[in-house]
């Protein structure tokens, strides 16, 4: 029997080693897997490379992980926000390395990794500081920049519902990077509000097929109420 569900947040993040590259879903706090991030903080892995659209909001979630000093490098598109004080201080002190990537290139590099694409030409960023030193090519009269896939050892994502095979559905704009990150990591860990029995998710509406997911953790009120 395939059962990808795990009993605890600690079990969900078990085995993430020092030096790992970890994708974390979310756009701001929408879709941010807060419980998995807290578990990663408790787990203690260091020297991490984090891939996220942002670089933390306020003092919780990704910001709390950055604050531990265990993140060496962050790959993101939009670190500077009104409430990104934790990132701002670490970046200014030189304690955190930043790779800034235009958001669509970030998404497509993640998608490419999951889809087995070796590299791709994109018009985004051509002629700008963010494409400096990269290969370019003129195709049908338009200039493109060569971008490489972005893979991860682990992806921590948040979905609304999952089943024991790892099929997932999301909720509203909390979907954002979840489905593509799930494809791009060796081990994808999804936190869901609830785990439902096989067959309960409409197969026409499954967004992430379970083949892309290795561990499922229920964190919703229903999960806490369960014995």
């Amino acid at each position, binding site marked *: 029997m395939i059962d990808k569900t795990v009993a605890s947040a600690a079990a969900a993040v078990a085995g993430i080693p020092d030096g790992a590259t970890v994708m974390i879903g979310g*756009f*701001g*706090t*929408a*879709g941010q897997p807060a419980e998995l991030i807290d578990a990663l903080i408790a787990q203690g892995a260091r020297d991490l490379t984090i891939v996220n*659209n942002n670089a933390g909001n306020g003092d919780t979630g990704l910001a709390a992980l950055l604050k531990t000093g265990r993140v060496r490098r962050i790959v993101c*598109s*939009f*670190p*500077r*926000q009104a409430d990104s004080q934790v*990132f*701002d201080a670490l*970046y*200014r002190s030189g304690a955190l390395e*930043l790779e*800034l*990537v*235009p*958001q*669509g*290139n970030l*998404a*497509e590099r*993640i*998608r490419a990794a999951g889809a087995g694409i070796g590299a791709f030409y*994109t*018009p*985004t*960023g*051509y*002629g*700008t*500081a*963010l494409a400096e030193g990269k290969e370019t090519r003129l195709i049908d009269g338009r200039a493109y920049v060569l971008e490489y896939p972005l893979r991860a050892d682990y992806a921590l994502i948040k979905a609304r519902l999952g089943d024991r095979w790892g099929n997932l559905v*999301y*909720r*509203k*704009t*909390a*979907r*954002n*990077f*979840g*489905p*593509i990150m799930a494809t791009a990591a060796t081990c994808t860990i999804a936190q869901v509000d609830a785990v439902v029995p096989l067959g309960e998710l409409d197969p026409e509406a499954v*967004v992430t097929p379970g083949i892309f997911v290795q561990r499922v953790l229920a964190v919703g009120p229903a999960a806490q109420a369960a014995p």
Partner: protein
Amino acid sequence: MKRLTREQMAQRVARDIPEGAYVNLGIGLPTLVANHLPAGREILLHSENGVLGMGPAPPAGAEDPDLINAGKQPVTLRDGGCYFHHADSFAMMRGGHLDICVLGGFQVSVTGDLANWHTGEPDAIPAVGGAMDLAIGAKQVFVMMEHHTKQGVSKIVGRCSYPLTGIACVSRIYTDLAVLDVTPHGLSVVDIVDGLSFDELQRLSGVPLINPRA
């Protein structure tokens, strides 16, 4: 001469968005355009974080933290709207599926180069988000910005001094003084705020302008 207010600028941009358009409004000043879209027109707003058919802000107390816009403010979904993941969202931009995007700007050059993501100051923390994808992806790129910086320097320039967002990507510029089309021959004046002549506008702008009525 009276400069347009930010709301009047938004009104002016909204007038040019036709029935049936798929539109992305950038964060900041362009967000105001949503408040002025003519009620009789069916226009679909796209948000980079995975929404098409975005509606206005919900009433107080009805906010949903899972339903936000690119500026991370709570929004609603119109009937017929839908959600999708980030790779699809940026395929809509990069793939040329959006009719119009409206972006803010630090500078626009006479050839339609846009600088709007970074001041280039050494202590500034850079953040680009989806600006570069929108700039090169939408069929038409409208830039909405004040004509001058707070120091009174023209933001319409011969060549951008700030780091570029995209090259030759801007179609039209809306400022608090004028609307200008980017053409192969230069910037052509579409309209000017009441009480300002072409010659005065020319004097207030950093580059030579084309007067199509001349």
